């Protein structure tokens, strides 16, 4: 008896008990749906995260004070000279920019808005992959000459001046004025890095406005992905040496952030994977239970088949196939439900659903494995029956 015939026999028998078969596979359905949904959502989320981070360039790194280890920030911890020294001594560092953060009320011809201002240099645009819509970003000579210029992001520009090119117009900040030299593209990023409205000033100009010099953070990019590690570590060393402050600085890279993000999603996947595993186990036991009932109910059928020439192996395979088909059925329903779930979450979270062929294959594999594992015992019991006894049974 070939496998095709056996599968048909199995389907016949499952069809003759539709409700029972459906209830039996429910555990498998839930288990597989959970696996597919979780993996799908996880993979989609991860892909989204990667995509977002790629936008910044994966070569990016940053250095600030090591708050994690309880160090506290002093105004002179990061100085503009540090940048010069690092750039001269660390060839792996391609761009390095200071970032001095503040909040300011900006006033234009059409309106006003309180935005985050970042005092920085020309390199910042390279580090953060900023795109200019109009005009230009801050240039190195702005700082040198002490120009009072400002770069707005699109949304801030719209708020202050209405639609159109605002380059050359005047912005009032506190009691000072600055000329708009450029507008950069607002990024509607998922991760919220750039979602705030931002204005960029030359670092020296911001220092003058504030009345003190401060750099909160250095942001740089390495010349290649492989050199990020070296770039940030060497930069950190130089800072420690120049400020005689070992362990005072903390360097991070997007690579690291991605890894820790992956770790978090990995743990979540593991937890829900365990739940799915338990569900599959419970489902499998349900399948075994029903198969045992089925074997008992069909004792006479087994006897008849044996009398007609079924070998013990034929009976064994018949019931194992039935168990596998039952689980596969649950698996397929689970895949559809799980995919639907992943699609729904992806739609809500606005990221691409990603249920890979591998995941589906894995789910199918799991179904078959559960069916096989929990089908063996009942099938074995069926195949061990004495044909005379079996024929006598009602």
């Amino acid at each position: 008896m070939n496998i095709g015939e056996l599968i048909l026999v199995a389907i016949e028998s499952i069809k003759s008990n539709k409700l029972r078969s459906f209830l039996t596979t429910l555990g498998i359905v839930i288990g597989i749906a959970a696996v597919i949904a979780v993996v799908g959502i996880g993979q989609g989320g991860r892909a989204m995260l990667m995509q977002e981070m790629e936008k910044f360039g994966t070569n990016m790194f940053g250095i600030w004070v090591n708050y994690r280890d309880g160090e506290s920030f002093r105004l002179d911890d990061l100085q503009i000279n540090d940048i010069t020294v690092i750039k001269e001594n660390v060839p792996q560092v391609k761009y390095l920019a200071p970032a001095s953060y503040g909040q300011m009320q900006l006033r234009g011809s059409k309106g006003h808005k309180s935005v985050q201002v970042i005092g920085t240099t020309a390199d910042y645009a390279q580090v953060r992959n900023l795109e200019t819509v109009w005009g230009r970003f801050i240039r190195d000579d702005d700082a040198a000459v002490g120009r009072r210029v400002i770069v707005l992001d699109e949304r801030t520009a719209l708020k202050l001046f209405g639609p159109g090119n605002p380059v050359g117009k005047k912005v009032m900040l506190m009691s000072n004025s600055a000329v708009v030299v450029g507008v950069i593209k607002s990024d509607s990023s998922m991760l919220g890095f750039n979602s705030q409205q931002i204005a960029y000033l030359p670092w020296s100009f911001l220092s003058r406005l504030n009345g003190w010099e401060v750099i909160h953070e250095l942001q740089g990019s390495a010349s290649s992905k492989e050199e990020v590690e070296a770039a940030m570590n060497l930069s950190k060393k130089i800072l420690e040496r120049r400020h005689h402050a070992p362990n005072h600085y903390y360097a991070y890279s997007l690579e690291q952030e991605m890894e820790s993000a992956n770790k978090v999603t990995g743990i979540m996947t593991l937890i829900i994977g365990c739940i799915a595993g338990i569900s599959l186990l419970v489902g499998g036991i349900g399948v075994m239970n029903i198969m045992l009932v089925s074997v008992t109910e069909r004792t006479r059928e087994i006897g008849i088949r044996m009398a007609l020439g079924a070998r013990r192996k034929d009976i064994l395979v018949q019931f194992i196939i039935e168990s596998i088909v039952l689980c596969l059925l649950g698996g397929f329903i689970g895949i559809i439900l799980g995919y639907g779930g992943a699609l729904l979450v992806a739609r809500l979270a606005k990221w691409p659903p990603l249920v890979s062929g591998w995941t589906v294959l894995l789910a199918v594999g799991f179904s078959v494995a559960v069916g096989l594992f929990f089908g063996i015992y009942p099938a074995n019991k069926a195949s061990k029956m004495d044909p005379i006894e079996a024929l006598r049974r009602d």
Partner: protein
Amino acid sequence: MIKINNLSKTYSTGAFTVPALKGITLDIAPGEFVAITGASGSGKSTMMNLLGLLDRPSEGSYLLDGMDVSNLNDDDYARLRNRKIGFVFQAFNLLPRLTALKNVELSMLYAGTKHEERRKRAVEVLTLLGLEDRLHHFPNELSGGQNQRVAIARALINNPAIILADEPTGALDSQTGLEIMSIFQELNRQGTTIVLVTHELNIARHSRRILRMADGLIINDEEIARPLDAHNEIQALREKGGRA
């Protein structure tokens, strides 16, 4: 066809051993129509199970179709049951979820016959038994006589060496029983070897040889010079019914 020498079967249940067959020697030639009769407990069921390769003898030898089958394994037994033996049971033993056609195909399925061939032969044999318009009916849609004919078709389908019929008329009314016996007689006339197990003497007398069993032994082995003819009996019944 069948050559049995000093065959015995003992069942042991815990401390007790119950002898069911106590050394039977028997020859059945090709083309014979043998009835085994006896009261319940006489050993005829055990005899049937041993002949049908559903059970193994405790002692003695059994040659089926020239082959010694006393010491074969389960798989060989299954294969021999499939190829050499056609069972007809009292309770028909059709699979309720399969149509007449599928039930008949079942034996061929285990013989590994190809699908088209199976279909063709099953239709042929069912037609031979007058069931050509019942191919796609399920057992619960057929009468007892029709079901038994499906079962006979199933038994015949692999061209077995012998047909083993265990009380084949036991679940049928007397006229339907006669119809079944008439089929067996016709098959036997065409050369099929038939072993019939029954406790009804009237049924046994349709065969050409009656073995009477008691206490695990054959106590009487009798050639029937003039067996009853089921076909004539049915005619007679019809006439009587007509007159009344």
